[in-house]
């Protein structure tokens, strides 16, 4: 089992750092992470949900604690103040006053100080309810901690209106503390009855400083714990997910590598879990693909061997037949007419058979991908001139005039001259055969990217559905038409194969009544070729050779002057 080779990939973290350094790219980066990283997305969702849950829990806990703290403090305060008030009332009831205002005032003061001791608060106010002026009744008294203005009119109304002196009323207030701040507090009010002078309002204020501090501490603890929990859960899910996504990412990388053609890569399989099953299935798939590809490769090799063997096996008997038919043909003058004609036919058909065999073998070589170009720098214009020269005799038989127009394409370009010559010969042969004896124009031109040669005849032309099929094997435009130049029906397929081997194109334009134009385009080596030929496939002329403006064959400079 092979581990995934960690080849010299660019360090991922470095790339990440570079992209993260630019803050303006962050939204894009985050969106990309969201889209592409399962782990990032899952962790983010888990984080959001956990944070929400913990937030709700913390808030409700904080509220409950706050409520509870306040209630218990309030109960304590109420109990304290009742005890203090009861003691004070008892003191007042027991006091013996002789309608002396000074004694009265002293009594009130002593009651206030005892209240302060009893109730553990120094915020005390005593206010007379009856506003009728009285010589005897003291007007009331309050300590510094409780300004009567702090007591709300509602509370006072309730206390004043109380029929039972024991009833307590309370209210939450903000109490000024020493340094100008306000602390939360509770004011408890009830009546206090002074002997002889009637009821007084008694207010005791308690601050909730301690409870408030406790509450803040509890809340702070809650928030800290909540945040820590959220972070902890995020970290945990990150690590848990890593154990899942890392094998998935590994599988993805391995599949990509397999798809890229490295058939030897396999996943490392540990254990028996779902991931291991995934790994095993993946490896089984890779094994199967590798086996099939190997089988196909072997088949292709077998095919090539077969073609090669057929080549040898057929050629030897064909040689004997050919030698024999040549012998017979050479001596056919000595035979009677029937025998003589038979010998002639045999000879011609053996030749045809040989051409067919050669073409078939050539085609099967393309199919097997075993063709190799033998490149040498060649001037396309001079090559065209050569081929025209070698075909002129045939053209003459058909009454066709071969013309060469070569504005460019003289400088040598790397090509396999044997194959290119075969293409040009083939195109010219077709043009001569179908050109109706009209002139045939061969154009050679070049641009920065490519060199091209066009062969144009002004014959019958072909319908579009025919011209689409000219490169098909064994296809003939008009099966009923008499073939005058022996062709196998493979010529244009082979030409197209040769053009493609050169990285070039072979295109056709044809119109009924206007003739046909084939253009072979060969890219210059090392040039980016976008398929645009220096010679347009559609000649764009009027389909008449008279107004070509070329009436005289052009004389080319001789070979070798510019290599």
């Amino acid at each position, binding site marked *: 089992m092979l581990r995934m080779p960690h080849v010299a990939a660019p360090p991922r973290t470095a790339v990440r750092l570079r992209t993260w350094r630019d803050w303006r790219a962050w939204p894009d980066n985050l969106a990309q992470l969201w889209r592409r990283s399962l782990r990032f997305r899952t962790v983010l969702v888990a984080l959001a949900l956990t944070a929400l849950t913990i937030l709700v829990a913390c808030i409700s806990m904080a509220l409950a604690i706050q409520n509870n703290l306040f209630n218990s403090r309030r109960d304590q305060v109420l109990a304290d103040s009742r005890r203090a008030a009861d003691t004070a009332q008892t003191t007042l009831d027991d006091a013996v006053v002789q309608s002396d205002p000074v004694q009265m005032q002293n009594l009130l003061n002593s009651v206030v100080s005892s209240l302060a001791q009893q109730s553990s608060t120094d915020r005390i106010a005593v206010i007379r309810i009856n506003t009728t002026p009285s010589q005897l009744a003291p007007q009331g008294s309050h300590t510094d901690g409780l300004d009567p203005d702090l007591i709300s009119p509602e509370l006072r109304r309730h206390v004043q209106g109380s029929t039972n002196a024991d009833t307590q009323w309370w209210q939450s207030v903000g109490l000024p503390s020493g340094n100008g701040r306000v602390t939360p507090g509770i004011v408890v009010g009830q009546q206090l009855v002074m002997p002889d002078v009637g009821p007084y309002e008694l207010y005791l204020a308690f601050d909730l400083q301690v409870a408030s501090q406790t509450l803040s501490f509890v809340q702070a603890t809650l928030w800290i714990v909540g945040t820590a929990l959220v972070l902890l859960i995020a970290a945990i899910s990150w690590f848990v997910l890593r154990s899942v996504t890392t094998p998935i990412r590994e599988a993805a990388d391995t599949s990509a590598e397999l798809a890229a053609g490295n058939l030897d890569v396999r996943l490392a399989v540990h254990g028996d879990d779902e991931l291991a099953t995934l790994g095993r299935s993946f490896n089984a798939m890779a094994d199967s693909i590798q086996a099939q590809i190997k089988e196909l490769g072997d088949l292709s090799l077998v095919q090539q061997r077969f073609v090669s063997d057929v080549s040898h096996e057929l*050629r030897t008997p064909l040689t004997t037949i050919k030698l024999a038919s*040549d012998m017979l043909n*050479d001596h056919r003058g000595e035979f009677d007419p029937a025998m003589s004609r038979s010998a002639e036919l045999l000879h011609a058909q053996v030749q045809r058979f040989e051409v067919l065999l050669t073409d078939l073998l050539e085609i099967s070589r393309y199919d097997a991908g075993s063709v190799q170009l033998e490149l040498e720098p060649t001037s396309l214009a001079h090559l065209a001139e050569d081929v025209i020269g070698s075909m002129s005799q045939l053209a003459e038989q058909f009454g066709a005039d071969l013309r060469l127009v070569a504005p460019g394409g003289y400088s040598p370009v790397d090509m396999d001259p044997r194959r290119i010559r075969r293409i040009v010969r083939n195109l010219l042969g077709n043009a001569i055969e179908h050109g109706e004896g009209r002139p045939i124009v061969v154009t050679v031109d070049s641009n920065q990217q490519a060199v091209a040669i066009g062969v144009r005849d002004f014959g019958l032309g072909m319908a579009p559905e025919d011209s689409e099929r000219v490169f098909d094997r064994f296809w003939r435009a008009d099966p009923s038409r008499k073939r005058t130049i022996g062709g196998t029906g493979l010529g244009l397929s082979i030409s197209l194969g040769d053009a493609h081997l050169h990285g070039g194109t072979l295109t056709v334009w044809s119109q009924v009544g206007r003739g046909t134009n084939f253009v072979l385009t060969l890219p210059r080596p090392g040039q980016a070729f976008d398929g645009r030929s220096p010679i347009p496939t559609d000649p764009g002329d009027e389909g008449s050779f008279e107004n070509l403006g070329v009436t005289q064959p052009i004389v080319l400079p001789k070979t070798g002057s510019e290599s």
Partner: protein
Amino acid sequence: MTSRILVVDDDTALAEMIGIVLETEGFDAVFCADGAEALTTWRDSEPDLILLDLMLPGMDGIEICTRVRAESGVPIIMLTARSDAEDVVAGLEAGADDYIVKPFNPKELVARIRTRLRPAVAVQPEAMHIGDLVVDVSGHEVRRGAEAIPLTPLEFDLLVALASKPQQVFSREALLEQVWGYHYKADTRLVNVHVQRLRAKIEADPDNPRIITTVRGVGYRAGKTR
């Protein structure tokens, strides 16, 4: 005197047919159908030329070629069913003078044979000097000082062709026409392989040739006479 030609081919029909063609043209044909017996038959019949099929039972054609070359410079023409590069080059490197691809026609075959059998071209000077070599044209011999260098007839023809016009550059096509008798564009590998073989025999340092130099993109030329 009729030339005797040894036809080594396991396909008896083809061998017989080649025999008929050769006898029609006035040659004397000897046959061998088994690669393993080819060398014995060759030694017994002492032919003037060997037509050798590359695919043979018993012993491979290339192996036969190598062994014959080790003993003799007799012209060898390979008969090959494949024009594939490796086979042809392997045969030429083993010492075959020329090759002919099946199926061939009788005229082609006879022309190839006659070219290899024709007497060396009569050149004006009987002895030529090229580099530190002396080429005795009529005696068919090349010497460096007192030491004779054994060359096959083809290699000798090639050297004579180059040496007859010192300093003149011969294109591969020109050499194909003059030495091999091809009048059309043929396989230039014939020239390349045989120039290599010739250099291996006559150059002091074949990797750094001084007698036969390559002119890039054009062809070959022989060095100055001394």
